[in-house]
């Protein structure tokens, strides 16, 4: 967490509130779980999983938003000043609600490495925000790919208790190429690591 003295002149920040059970009404227009636009460069992957509560029951009314770089490790954003190519029409944004079994899935390109504050770039990762009834504030986490050597040197992963790191790893689904499983456990055994920044 970054802290700084709060000047008195700052305006008061808006506070989080839950999305509640009816977010579909407002969010559906931008549901998008297939980010693979025509001509997109890189390796297409599908990432699927389920959201579970503390009883290990699936959460049927969550919504996930993802944000990621393209296969070159470039974000479609004006503050990414790297000299790397962008993909036409690839926004890097996805939004997917869970179904009755708590399942979600995205089809996207595996992101490339992006800069860190050290000399070693960050390992490929996807940022995830999770919203649902019962969460007054969102939860934020990251998806990493278990078959990436660069995970060992990733600045953010190395801040996390090694015993809990595996909760951030998407794992290849046996018998299916380019498909990964990544579940979210909100509370309890194998609870997903959630981040604050």
């Amino acid at each position, binding site marked *: 967490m970054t802290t700084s003295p709060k000047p008195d002149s700052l305006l008061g920040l*808006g*506070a989080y509130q839950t999305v509640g059970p009816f977010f579909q009404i407002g969010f559906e227009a*931008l549901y998008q779980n297939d980010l693979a636009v025509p001509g997109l460069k890189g390796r297409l992957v599908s990432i699927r999983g389920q959201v579970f509560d503390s009883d290990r029951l699936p959460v049927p*009314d969550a919504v996930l938003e993802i944000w990621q770089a393209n296969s070159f490790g470039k974000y479609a954003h004006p503050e990414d000043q*790297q000299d790397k190519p962008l993909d036409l029409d690839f926004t890097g944004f996805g939004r997917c609600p869970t179904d009755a079994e708590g399942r979600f899935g995205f089809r996207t390109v595996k992101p490339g490495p992006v*800069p860190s504050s050290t000399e070693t770039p960050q390992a490929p990762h996807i940022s995830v925000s999770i919203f649902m009834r019962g969460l007054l*504030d969102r939860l934020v986490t990251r998806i990493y790919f278990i078959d990436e050597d660069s995970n060992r040197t990733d600045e953010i992963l190395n801040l996390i208790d090694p015993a809990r790191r595996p909760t951030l790893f998407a794992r290849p689904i046996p018998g299916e190429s380019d498909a990964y499983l990544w579940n979210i456990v909100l509370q309890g055994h194998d609870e997903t690591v959630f981040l604050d920044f």
Partner: protein
Amino acid sequence: MNQRDLFPIRRYRSPAPGIHPPHLYPGYVSSVKRAPSQALVSIPQTLSEVTGPGFQRHQLKVGADLTAQGHGEPSGQRISLSGRVLDEDGKPIRNTLVEIWQANAAGRYNHAVDQHDAPLDPNFIGNGQLLTDEEGRYQFKTIRPGAYPWRNHPNAWRPAHIHFSLFGPAISTRLVTQMYFPGDPLLPFDPIFNGIRDEAARQRLIARFDWNTTVPEQALGFTFDIVLRGRLETPMENRL
């Protein structure tokens, strides 16, 4: 490391304690099985956290006039709802996506899960989208939503509210909140509203009645400004 390999990451301020509600708030019963039990892991903001999705006008599929979604006028009190999206330094956040959704005037959502015994309104869906203008301004036309019962505790009623979703420039500035109406007698009893510990932060979620935006013979005006995280003054360098 060569100087040209470095570029500044313009990080965002952290919220003061008490502004955002906690994940676990037992008064809000459904938080008990869904809130994490472990502390969040604090990470430095990297390029991944200071960037975020942008949206273009052609991506919007829903308008800003929620009273024009059916063949006729929806039931209820028409309101004009406007305000500005700013950062903590008062800078307007231009061209950013605002999404809203709400119940109808009878307190019923147009959603299969809502089984509250109040009438649906064939002329009201209850969603809106827009991009803020060059001054960070937005304006929706809608109807005042009704309060509705829920099962959090005996005889529980949610105060009338409109859900707001905002992006700002980065995933760090993403905000989903609810806007309430002044003088609502249900506010002191609502665990969602009162999950915010900071009194001033709670009051900021209450819109203000406004004569200037009240349209004669047409609609009552309410204003609601929304402030997203501002930047820290000192950039941090990241390596390309």
